[in-house]
């Protein structure tokens, strides 16, 4: 009898440990990830531990043994901020790669991201997200539901910004025109949709000077009608990081 009790107790202990381990490594769906609050009951900011499985879509530069990576699964997108990894590991993370990510859900100026993350590569068929057409959501509260996703904006008209000398310009190097060609500065340009103007960015660590999209924006003229694709980054509001610009179809 004693032996049976001892065996039952051991089994219970093992089962509890296994359950605990499973609980710690529980992979969240995107809906579960989004539902995790960023504040506690008292309204204090908190960061919660998360594990998700997702696919690399684009890499926003490796620097100081860290990288910023856009990832997306079938049910939603995640931005990995400053994930520690070596240059070799970074190079191995090609778009389409499936990874399991463990880190903390956090928010910075409205951008929901996973910080202090670790990852492991999973065996799987590559997944490349299709751009979601978010044109109709521009200026609406629903746009944020697609934060960090690959999105498209179609049929917008390039409108003028003012350069440092007060002249019309189709785009600026840096937000205020303080940059110049040859410096790998971010590009900023304004596009009008349905009478409202929105600012779009080519983030130079995501798409550096010399890439197709960088050259396409440098070639823009006021009045051009264009289709764009990019990742829906957030900085106190929508701040799409554009990866493709083409003449509207």
């Amino acid at each position: 009898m004693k032996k049976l009790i001892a065996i039952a107790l051991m089994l219970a202990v093992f089962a509890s440990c296994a359950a605990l381990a499973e609980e710690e490594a529980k992979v969240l769906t995107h809906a579960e990830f989004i539902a995790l609050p960023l504040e506690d009951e008292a309204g204090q900011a908190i960061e919660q531990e998360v594990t998700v499985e997702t696919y690399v879509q684009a890499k926003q530069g490796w620097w100081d043994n860290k990288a910023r990576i856009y990832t997306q699964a079938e049910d939603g997108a995640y931005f990995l901020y400053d994930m520690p990894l070596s240059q070799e590991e970074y190079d191995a993370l090609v778009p389409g790669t499936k990874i399991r990510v463990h880190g903390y859900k956090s928010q910075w100026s409205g951008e929901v991201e996973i910080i202090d993350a670790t990852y492991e590569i999973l065996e799987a068929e590559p997944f490349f997200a299709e751009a979601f057409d978010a044109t109709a959501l521009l200026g609406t509260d629903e746009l944020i539901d697609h934060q960090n996703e690959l999105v498209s904006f179609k049929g917008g008209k390039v409108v003028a910004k003012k350069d440092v000398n007060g002249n019309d310009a189709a785009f600026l190097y840096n937000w205020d025109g303080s940059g110049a060609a040859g410096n790998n500065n971010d590009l900023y340009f304004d596009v009008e949709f349905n009478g409202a103007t929105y600012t779009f960015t080519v983030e130079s660590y995501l798409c550096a000077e010399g890439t197709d999209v960088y050259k396409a924006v440098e070639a823009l003229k006021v009045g051009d009608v264009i289709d764009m694709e990019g990742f829906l980054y957030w900085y106190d509001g929508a701040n799409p990081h554009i990866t493709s610009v083409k003449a509207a179809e």
Partner: protein
Amino acid sequence: MKNVIRYLALALLLVLCLTLTGCHGSQDSSAFVIPQTFDTGRNYEVTFWAKNDTNKTQTAVYEKAIADFQALYPNIKVNMRLYSDYSRIYNDVITNIATNTTPNVCITYPDHIATYLTGNNVMAPLDDLFSDPRYGLGGSELKFDGPTRAEVVPQFLDECIINGHYYALPYMRSTEACYINKTYVEKLGYTVPDVLTWDWIWEVADAATAKGEDGNYLINGQKVMIPFIYKSTDNMMIQLLRQSGGGYSTENGKIQIFNDVTREHLKTVAAHVKTGAFSTFKISSYPGNFLNAGQCIFAIDSTAGATWMGTDAPLMDIAADKVVPFETVVRPIPQIDPAHPQMISQGPSICVFNKKDPQEVLASWLFAQFLITNEVQISYAETEGYSPVTLKAQQTPEYQDYLARSGEDNNEHYYVKIDATKLLIDHTADTFVTPVFNGSASLRDAAGQLIEEVAKGVRRRKTVDDAFITSLYDQINSLYRLDQIGAAAGEGDKDASDMGPLPGTAVTLLAALVAVWLLMGLYVLKNALKKRKSS
């Protein structure tokens, strides 16, 4: 006997050769030597890596400076590459040292120069250039009215000494300031003192976290309020340690930061993160954005960020409809001892890289020096809360007039910007810098990371106690390899009695010297005995 003398002489010569070989200097044949004259019959290209604060006026100042310089020296073409981040310049320089493609001149921090100096003759030492009567500071052959050495603020110039030599010129100087929503402070029933203390700022920040029944903060009626946000936690820890007498590092790089004073500061930070009174730029966002939206009361940032601070700030990073009207006042950072304020001195410096062609280095030096002439200094300083680095520029009627016109408009004479500038000028004697050594940049990062990790620990509902901090010390020590830096520097801090066994080469050398002296002694003794016998 002649043979014995020959052998002795040969042995001595060998020992001397060995001795001299052991004392080789760090410089090789490519060390920079100032040319007798600057060859104006040749053309030069000077690559200049500059940093601006993503500010178009600063870009314009650089461009004008280059145009003016090229007009004076038509044989020198300056090619500028603009960065908006010091650490990116640092990274690119490190990468380019390996391929001998460093720029000629670059804007940098002394911590970074200490790393550049680990390469052989990568940098041009400026000691001799400073004092050269022709091309040095205020030199007779300059085609511009540059400052003399005495006209550069001595404290700022001293900050450019690394390993006992000048390796940079100061370009701009700033410190940190506390930008305060005075309206909210008074609404909470407090008065802003001339010198803030840490105790006072924590008290007011905690008071501002009170909420109403609707869950909104009482002070602003909004869902968001972070009363105290610090932009650079590196500086926060460095200044806290300086003010409290806690160790940071020795002059030659022995790491002292993992101590009990630091531990107490971290516990204080944790307590106020827990109340919701405190956060950091890395965790929340730019202090100025929260300040201008009425969601922060104390925003600590560089004086070089003053144009982004306050309701009427000329530069704004939030939508106009989110800006809340309030009165902004500027104070030095909080102090532990208000009678003896201490604050960091920071800001960009200019370094010159060594090249095979000394004429090219001289051309680079001329341009570097041109950047501290009055017009460049004054126009760049006025773009932000910077101070010119020369007394010559500070004392011009033009600059004094600029300071006197504070508040006349919300652009060039924006009062918050000018108040921030005056803060530094008035407190120059209260500023300090941290020791510079190979690895000091890592120590600086580690200092800030201690605060960030403690703040994140609280947000992750961890218990921030002694055990947490002890574990954090180990992690940070390892992550930033401070144990290696400390071990290397620690050798220099030891007593002579504790220097361990002599290296094998030294033992051989000393043994050889002893043997030679013994042979010489024997020879003298033998001669003396011989003379005695013969007499």
